[in-house]
C-alpha cells in the first residue's frame, strides 16, 4: 500500500545536497512524483532483466544492471 509522500524528508535531502537551493510550495510533490517514476522504470528494467535470466526473483545483479541504464536515462 502506498503511503504518503515524505515531503519533509525530500526537502531535507535536497537541502543537504544543495543548501542554497529553495523549493517551491508543492514542488516537492513533483519531486516525489519523479522519484516514483524513477523507481517504476527501475523496477521494470530489473524485471526485464530477471525475465531474461529466467529467474522468478529479482536479484541484485539484475538490479545493478538496470540501475546503470536507468540512472543514465534519468539524468536531466
Amino acid at each position, binding site marked *: 500500500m502506498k*503511503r504518503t509522500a515524505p515531503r519533509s524528508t525530500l526537502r531535507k535531502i535536497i537541502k543537504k545536497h544543495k543548501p542554497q*537551493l529553495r523549493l517551491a510550495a508543492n514542488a516537492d510533490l513533483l519531486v516525489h*512524483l519523479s522519484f*516514483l517514476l524513477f523507481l517504476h522504470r*527501475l523496477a521494470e528494467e530489473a524485471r526485464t532483466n530477471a525475465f531474461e535470466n529466467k529467474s522468478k526473483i529479482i536479484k541484485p545483479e539484475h538490479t545493478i544492471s538496470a540501475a546503470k541504464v536507468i*540512472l543514465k536515462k534519468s539524468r536531466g
Partner: protein
Amino acid sequence: MASRGGGTPAASGASGPAELQLPQGPRGLSPPPPPPPRNYADHNAPRRRRNYPPHTAPRPLPALARVSREEAGGGNRWAVTGPAMADRRPRARPGLRRSGHNARAVAQTGSSVENKSKSVRSTLAKQGLGVFPDLRNGTPRLMLKRVMQNQPQVSPLAPQISNHEDTKEAHSEVPSQRVSSMGELQLPDVAPEDTSTTVFNMKKKRRKFSISEFERAAESRLPQYQAQSALDSTVMTRSLRMSVGSLLAPDTVEKRGLLRRPKTRRAVDMQAFEGRVEQNLLKSKGQNDLVDSQSASVIRTSMLTSDAEMMMNSTELFVQPLLDEESQNKLSALEPQLSDSKTSAQRSPISDADQEEARLEGLVSSVSTNQERTQRYSKSTGLDDEHVDRMSHVSPETPAKQGEEKQDHSQQSNPVAKISVTEEEVVCSVYRWNSSLPSKSSSTHLGSPVTLNVSRMHLRQVVSHIIEDLEVSDTEEEMINTENGVEQKKIFQEAAERGASAGHSEHLEKKLAEKAELQITAGHASRGETEVAPSAGKEVEEGSTGAHSSPRAEHEITRGIGAESLGRPSHAFSSFEKPEVTPVDEIDEQGDELQDQAMMLNLDSSVGEPAEDEAEQPESQEVSMKTPTFVRAPPHKLLLSAKPAKASAPSFPQSSPLKLLQPKTVPKRLRTSQKKPREPQVPRSLIKAIFRHFAKMPVTRDAFQIVEKCSERYFKQLSDDLEAYSHHAGRKTVEAADLEVLMRRQGLVTDKMPLRVLIERHLPLEYRRLLIPVAVSGNKVIPSK
C-alpha cells in the same frame, strides 16, 4: 441585527447590504455574487406580510434551526429551503443580505418575497428554522403555539414568551418597527429554546444533588461511628471531602456514570464476593488460622478496598478510617460475613472500596496496635467481615444506594481507621481513602492494586484491578500461597517497622500494601476472591468505561493476581517507586500490615498508574501482579514463607520497576546529550513498497539495498539538475516548471504524455488536488492562485 449574527433576521434594510455580505464571506459561499444593493425597505414591507401567514408546522428547536441556517449561508439557504427557494433566490438575496443571517434572512426573504412563502416557510420550518422570528413567531398564532408547546416544560419562561409574543405581534404588524420586532420575535424563539434547555439543566441538577446527598449522608453517618481517630477522621475527612468535592465538581456527570454502573453490579458482586471471601477464609483457616485469616482478610480487604476505592472515587466520602480496636473487633466479628460481602463487594465498585478501606484500616490498625499477625489478621478479617457485611448489605440494595455503601464503608473504615492508628501517617500521606481501603482488602490482589488505585483512579480502575487480580490470582494462588505466607509475615514485620518509623512515604505504604497483597493473594485461597475481584473489576471497568483507568486497573489487578512470585510484588513496588524499593524490602520484612496496606493502596495506584503509563504492558502487568500480592500479603503469615521470595522479588522488582521509572528520566538525558545527526533519507519501507509494487515480482533483500543506493544517487542527480534549471531561469527557487522540464528531459513527460496525466496516475488525490488546478462551481479554482 445583521451584526447580531443570527439574532435578528433581515432587520434593517440600510445596513443590510454591507453587513449581510460580510457574514457570507467567511462562510465561503462564493457562488452567488453579491447582488447590487437594493431598496430593502420595499422588501421589508412585503416580507412582513408574508410572515403572517400562519405556519402551523411546529418549529424545531430554534438552536438547531439557527445552526442549520447559519451554516447554510447564502448558498445553503436555498439548499435548506429546498427547491421551493430556488425561485426566490433572486428575491431572497437582498433579503439575505439584509439580515445577514442565512437562515433567518432566507426565511424572511423567502416568505416576504413570495406570497407563497407558506411553502417556503414550511420548508424552512421543517428544516428547523424555527428561529425565524417572522415566520414562526411573527404570527401571533405561531407564537402562541410555540408557547403552548414549550410552556409546560418551562414554566418560568412561559410568561416571558407570552410577553414576547405580545410584543412580537405588535411589532410584526408594524413593518417599520421590523427591526425591533425582529429582535423581540426572536426572543420568543429563544425562550422556548431556553425552556427546553432549562429542562435539561434541571435534570442535571438533580443528579448533582444526588451526589451531594451522598456526601451529606456519608458525613452524617461518619460521626455516628466512634472509631474515628482524630487524625484519621480529620485527615481522612478532609481529604475525602476535598477529593470528593474536587471530584464532584468537575466530574459530576462522570461520577454519576461511575456510580450508576457499578451499582447494579455491586449487588451481584457483593454476594459472590462474600461467598468467596468466606471460602478463602475457610481455606486460609484450614491452612493456618492466623495466616489464613489474615490472608482472607487481606483478600477481602483488598477486595473491599478495591470496592471502597471505587466507592471512594465515585462517591466520596465516607471514609474515615476507623481506628483501632473498635474496628478490629468489628472486623473479627464480621469475618464470616465479610467473606461473603467481600466477594460481592468486590464486584460492586463501591462496596469494594469500602471493604478495602476497612481492610486497610483493619490491617493498619492491627499492625499498629498489635504487631502480632494474629491480631492483625483478626482485625483485618473483622474489618473485612464488616466490610463484607456492609457490602453484602449494599449489594442487595439498589445500586442507587451508593450513599449507604459509603456509609458502610465509612463505618467499616472507621474501625479500620482506629486500627490503623499507626498507619495514619501512612494512610494520610497516601490518600486518605486509598490507604484505608486497600490496606487489607487489597491484599488479595484485588484490593491492593485496586485500593491504591482508588485513591488515584476511579472505580473503574479499581474494578479493573480487582478483576485482574482475580484473574491472576486464580492461576497463581497456590504457588503464591506458600510464598505469600512467608512474605506476608515478612511484610508484617516490615510494616511494623515501618509504622514505627512513621513518616512513611506513600510509596512505602504502597509497597507494603502491594507486598501484602501479593502475599495474601498467593498464600490464601484468594482464588475465590480473585475470581470475584476480576469479575468485580471487570464490571467496574465496564461501568467506568474509563479507558485510562481500566487499563491501569487491569494491570494492577493482574499484578495482584499474578503475585505468584514475591518478586513480582517487589517489582511492582520498585517499578513504581524507586525509593520504595528499599523500603519495600524492609517493609516486607517487617510485615507491617498497616504499612503494607497503605503501601498497597499507594502502590496499587502508583503501580497501576506508572506501570501502565511507563512500562509496557508486560512489565506493568508484572508489576501490577506484584503489587497486589504485596498488598495482600502483609497481613498474612505467608510473609514468612514469602521472605525468601520477597528478597528475590525486591531485587527483581527493583530492576524492573526502576527500569520502568527510569525510562522516564533517562531517555531524556540521553536525547539531550546525544544528538543523532541523522542523515535524511527516504524511508526504506517506502522504497520497498514502491519498488515491490512496480516490480510485481519477489525481490531479494540485496536487491533492495541496491535500489536504495540508486535512489540516493538519483536524488543527487536530481538536485543538480534542478539547480541548473532554476539558475538558468534566473531564480533561486525550484518551481514546478523546473520539475516539468526535468521530467521532460528524462523522457517521462512527452507530448503524448502530459505531466498532468502522470500526476493523476501516480499521486493520490490529496496531492493531485494541490498540483492540478481544478475548477469548481462558482467560478472558483482550486487551488486558488
